[in-house]
């Protein structure tokens, strides 16, 4: 059974991380559940833990000079959902996470660090080419979130590092799409999720991207598939559609309910592309039944 530490500054936390390898515990909505032992018993962790909720350096959402948005690791989904500077896809995902109590308690750092393929926030963040800022006693490094999450429950986090923040670069999408399919309408774990976005100017698709959650061991982004659409004209969409959808289908690897997840992903992406082709008004593409 591990020790529990409560650092009050980032430097103290980094030192504990380096010396003891203590795992950061913030909202506890993953770790506490994973190590639960039943009624009236505190969880027992097989490793040292540090409760980092008091560390102010890890809090807050701020706009950076280059138009990026930096979200501290301790920021909760409720704060993200209520922010007017966080990009739309991420706010949507944050607003649909779990129940209100969880949204008030969980943190973006935890959701990323837990690296569950069903995690709600990594999916839109990877769509937006977000980066994680990793801190250690030796300093800081930045890397793409897409590179940071290696697989189900696996990350590139060093033994002496903690997630300090997430930085989302600026975007100006012409079209955006987000959909989470949960097991029910509220308080649900994701069964499948998809984000998509496109920049269209003068009939040319300057940017096109998508990301799939709960469709494989990690969030799926496929630059190869995206490149089938990117750089082409809107009127070419019908002839590109099949090869794009096929490429995307090859990129995802859902384990359970493969037929449902594959077909639904295909229909959602097809719908998004068709909407662009049909000249939908710029903005959010939301489907009408």
């Amino acid at each position, binding site marked *: 059974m591990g020790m529990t530490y409560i650092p009050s500054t980032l430097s103290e936390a980094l030192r504990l991380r380096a010396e003891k390898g203590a795992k950061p515990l913030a909202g506890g909505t993953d770790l506490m559940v994973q190590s639960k032992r039943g009624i009236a018993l505190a969880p027992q962790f097989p490793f040292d833990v540090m409760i980092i909720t008091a560390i102010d350096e890890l809090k807050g959402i701020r706009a950076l000079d280059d138009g990026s948005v930096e979200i501290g690791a301790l920021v909760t989904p409720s704060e993200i959902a209520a922010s007017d500077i966080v990009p739309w896809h991420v706010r949507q995902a944050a607003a649909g996470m779990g129940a209100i109590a969880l949204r008030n308690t969980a943190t973006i750092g935890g959701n990323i660090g837990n690296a569950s393929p069903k995690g709600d926030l990594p999916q839109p963040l990877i769509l937006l080419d977000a980066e994680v800022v990793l801190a250690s006693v030796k300093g800081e490094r930045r890397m793409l979130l897409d590179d940071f999450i290696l697989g189900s429950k696996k990350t590139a986090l060093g033994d002496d590092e903690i997630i300090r923040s997430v930085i989302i670069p600026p975007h100006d999408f012409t079209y955006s799409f987000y959909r989470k399919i949960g097991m029910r309408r509220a308080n649900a774990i994701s069964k*499948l999720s998809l984000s998509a976005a496109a920049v269209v100017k003068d009939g040319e698709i300057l940017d096109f991207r998508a990301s799939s959650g709960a469709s494989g061991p990690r969030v799926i982004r496929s630059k190869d598939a995206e490149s089938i659409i990117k750089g082409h004209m809107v009127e070419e969409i019908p002839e590109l559609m099949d090869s794009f959808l096929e490429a995307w289908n090859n990129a995802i690897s859902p384990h359970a309910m493969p037929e449902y997840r594959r077909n639904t992903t295909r229909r959602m992406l097809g719908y998004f592309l068709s909407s662009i082709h049909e000249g939908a008004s710029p903005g959010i593409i939301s489907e009408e039944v």
Partner: protein
Amino acid sequence: MPQTAIDDRIVRVDATSKARGEAKYVSDLSFPDMQYAYMVRSSIPRGKIDSISIPELPEGYWFISADDIPEEGKNELWMIQKDWRCFAEGDVKYVGETIGLLVGSDRNVLRYLLDNVDIKYTEEEPAITIDEGLAVKGGPIVGEDNVLCQLFVEKGRPMEEVFREADSVFEETIETGFQEHVHLETNGAIVTIENGKYTFYASAQCPFYIRKAVAGLLGLQAEDIVVKQTTTGGAFGGKEHFPDVLCGPLLVAEHKIRKPIKLIFDREEDMLYSVKRHPAKITYKTALDKDGNILGIDGVVVYNCGPYLSGSFVVLQRGVFHANGVYDIPNTHVKGIGIATNTFPSDAFRGFGAPQTLFAIETHMEHIAKRFGFDPAEYKSRYFIKQGGETITNGHIVERVVLPEMMKQVTDASDYFRKASEYRPGSGKGIGISFYNHGGAFTGNGEQAIIKAHARLVKTGDRVRIEVGSTEMGQGFQTTLRKIAAATLGISIDDVDYDNPDTSIVPDSGPTAASRSTMIVGRLVERCAEEMKERWQEGDFSVEKEYEHPEGHPWDQNTFRGDAYLGYGWGCCIVEVEVDKLTKEVKVTGIWSSHDIGKAIDELIVHGQVNGGIVQSLGYASMEKMENRNGHFRQSSMSDYVIPTSMEFPTQQWFLVDNPYEWGPFGAKGMGELVFNGADAAYIDAVERAIGKEIHKIPMPPEDIEEVLNAE
């Protein structure tokens, strides 16, 4: 204080204490020197126990098992039969079977001990599904063919004759899944010794069942045991017989330890290791003439019971007796089989066997209607049984059946016929309809022959105390019963007391089950109150009454012939849906229902029951998926076994029809289960129309709808 009238809308008597968190549940109770108990359970579905290795026990810690049952006792829980063992001995028959109890004062220590128990098994091949049970996979669990219980009923002419005359025969099999009760309060009980008697504090529907079930473990009589019901946070049938499974081992432990011992399941235990609704596989073979008229139905109803009988035979009987739904089918033969498997035993769940067959017959009737081009509502209504009509058990419907009026209410309110003709199959929009009933109280003459319920009113000054064994479990019975007493006596409900029952004080009013409490116990209290009112001036006294069976309603429990139920609740439900074209998620856009419950004793409580029953039924049909792989339930929490939230379904429009029931208090009949019995079929009908395909099973989450769409 003002007199309470039966039609007053009043605040539930237990609302404030529960809403404020002041109500004390069993897990809130504590006694001096109280010990805790953890269950040691089987981790395999079937096999021999080779050895049980318990870590060295510190002083003041005990491992209790079958070895601790005294010589004069027997290792059996007396539910209906005595086949369910208190502790597994020699072998195990399902995952989660109780092997022992670890008891001691510190839960940290107990948890450590539990994590280090080592049980060695020789595993045997289990039978998990109905088909595996029928095929006697791995050898018989029970008897030679795994048939735990069976029965058949027949009405009209022989089936061979009817089928010879048929122009066509339509046969299909419809399946329903496990359902978990998910009562907000998990199972729990405390055993202690008070005034020299073994005494239980238990979250339970039926305190008198517990006494009977466990006494034999110590060679005692039921009267030697006292059970005090604690405020119970939901049950739905999950606390009918199942508290026996907690209380039995606790009693054996108490016999040895003689200190208060508390056993509380956490949510994961309550999900994985408790009874569930019986999964069912129901086959109807229907003889039809060339115009689509039904000549006869031959049905086979198979319920997955697990390895022990518990309440399964009674559940199966109710399933078979409801297998014709609300219809008067001229010729029927229905066979019911309860099959033994190595799953956790199935037991009571709101509806008690009726929901499975009602879902199946509704879906089957609707499939016939669509195949012959009829609107399902119109087609089904041709077969509505009427007062005096012959039931599936050769009995007769006693009351006036007002289904046609109820159908008009909901079809008008929902604009059903316009929508049904406008929404094209496969258009993504659909509207569906179902009809259902529920026989109130125990089957046949069970109320008279088996239960013989008693109720008592005690007058002290101007206050009146109700003494019954019936329990409040969230359904509102404390309010309902106090209201019946107050309104009959012409006093205020505030002058009527009704505490959680204590078996050493109250008479046995029978189980709080079978939608019988208002109808049977409510009527007993009404009769007590009528007499008390006449004698009001006599000072302090009490009145006790015993159940009286209405004359002229024969029933033969050996052949299952006669009037199976003396009063049915009736229901009609319409559900409208939109199926998302991209994701196959189903959005319910309208819910309309009408119920005949005789008379609503309290409209607010009835409203709560209607809303809750329909939402629970829609959850059963849509999202509540409990899978069993190799004997292990896969869903273990409220995040993977999902029940509906308030976000899932829209506001319901609901109607009641007034149709007073002769033998119920103020004309009331049973209603707690009725309201669960039909929304599932209406929902599936609506989804079928929206996707343009037939569905043959529930639950139907989006991934299963996808599968239906892609089939063939």
